[in-house]
């Protein structure tokens, strides 16, 4: 989902970076059209991102895709194929920099698009579902670099969606609804938090690990909840 932007920052040099982020995501989904029982499973995937720092602005775009299989705890034999596509664009303003601690504080806005497709292949007839969510979120980002030349960076970023548009199938079928719905907090709850740690390996390469927790809930007549934990390897190139 969202909050998947930049977390590793090189110690200096070029202000344009490219990120490759293979990840393994543990997903817990409830789609009440099919069951109130959570379906869980792993979704491997890849995220690509690019960022640029200009003056006091941090601009980022990212795209992520993964596909995996979930199952019900009560019905292990029932498989759910789920794919997850996300795209984000964010603009963050540098609120504060403390040179003596190597820390940065950013805040800004993020626009993100999430498309989740689910296929309950062992169930009959209308056995597919999806949700498409486009949101505007508030983002807070704190990063701190440590070490003598500050080769290691820790970063934490949180976001919360404040206004979203979403689309799901019609209440009683798998066919997409003709219209989009608009919802703010309460109707569409979507937020996430990400923590990462990176180390500069060379002048142009950083490596690290990231952990993300993401959550969304559509409080629609076709209620859907998804809670995701993902572990990623962070590979950052300075261009």
């Amino acid at each position, binding site marked *: 989902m969202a909050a998947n932007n930049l977390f590793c920052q090189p110690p200096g040099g070029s202000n344009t970076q490219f990120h490759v982020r293979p990840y393994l995501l543990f997903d817990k989904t409830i789609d009440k059209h099919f069951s*109130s*029982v959570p379906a869980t499973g792993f979704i491997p995937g890849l995220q690509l991102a690019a960022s640029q720092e200009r003056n006091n602005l941090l601009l980022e775009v990212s795209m992520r895709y993964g596909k995996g299989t979930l199952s*019900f705890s009560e*019905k292990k034999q029932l498989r759910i194929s789920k794919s997850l596509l996300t795209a984000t664009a964010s603009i963050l303003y540098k609120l*504060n920099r403390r040179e003596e601690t190597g820390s940065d504080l950013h805040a800004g806005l993020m626009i993100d698009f999430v498309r989740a497709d689910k296929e309950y292949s062992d169930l009959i007839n209308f*056995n597919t579902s999806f949700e498409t969510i486009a949101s505007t979120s508030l983002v807070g980002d704190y990063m701190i670099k440590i070490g003598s030349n500050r080769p290691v960076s820790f970063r*934490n970023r949180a976001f919360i969606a404040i206004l979203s548009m979403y689309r799901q199938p019609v209440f*009683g079928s798998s066919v997409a609804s003709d219209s989009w719905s608009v919802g703010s907090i309460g109707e569409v709850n979507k937020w996430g938090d990400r*923590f990462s740690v990176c180390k500069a390996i060379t002048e142009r390469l950083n490596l690290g690990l990231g952990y993300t927790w993401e959550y969304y809930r559509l409080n629609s*007549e076709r209620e859907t909840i998804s809670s995701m934990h993902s572990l990623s390897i962070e590979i950052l190139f300075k261009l």
Partner: protein
Amino acid sequence: MRRIRKPYTVISICLLLFFAATSCKKTLQTSPPGTSAVETFEELWTFMDRHYALFDVKQIEWKMIYDKYRSTVTNAMTEAALFEVCADMLEELKDGHVTLISPFKTFTYENFYRLFPTNFNYPNISANYLGSSSKVSGPFIYTIKQGIGYLYCKSFRDDYTNEDLEKVFNELQSTTGLILDIRSNTGGKAGNVNRLVQKFLDKKTLVKYELVKSGPGHNQFLLPNAYYLEPTAIPYSNPVIVLTNRTCFSACNDFASYMNYLPQVTILGDQTGGGGSIPNNYILANGWTLQYSSTITLSADKIPIDAGITPDIYLNISPIDETNGIDPLIEKAFLLLK
């Protein structure tokens, strides 16, 4: 702003905030319903209340049924006893598409055919009507006698190829009439139905309307969606008599409904078993699987077909005929087509 001197303090604060946020997920996430007897009953009733499509068609007061059965459910009852109560409640719907499956028992409403004569005896047909000259192609068994074709379609479940179908109709094209037997065909896939119906169409034809639920209200539906079928290259245009019984259900019921509107077709036998809806599944919190009717199907003239298709000519097989190996429906169809 207070100056933070130690970077590790900041990291610690970040980590604390991070784990505080992520640990909230249990309170943010809706818990699945419990699996006590009362909770299971409530979950089943509520899901059906919101998703079952045929309450108004069947004129069923679902709340009254809740009142009737809810008082019999207690958390002290066994799972088997709860299953019986749930099955009894679902039986009130008299819907062959409603099924409840537990690890120890399955409920399916079957009285749509069990309460009526079978009107079908395949061993008799095989021995006395198909004989050794019959041929098989996919799910079709067929023969030609005295210039009249007999085609038995046992199911719409198994996919068949266009070659299977062409092989049958290449031979039947020479007949002056066709007996199309769909008795005891309990349904299957819409695509298999459509391809067979298309062999009898000479123009694009409206075959049905489908009503899909647009919300949880009993009468909340989208506008009827019209379905048309296109003809195939060489349609079969001679008279056709379709043989039906009460076990012709679901997709077979659709087939009878589509054919019923074609001018060259006569329906002969008993009323079909109904099942005019698209069934869907739901997994209850305790692991039981529910199947329910999720749509309403209307005929080409917008009449619900859930109660079955009425034949043009009613005819049953008497026990004496059956004992003597005679199928009066086939006999009558031959007479009409001669």
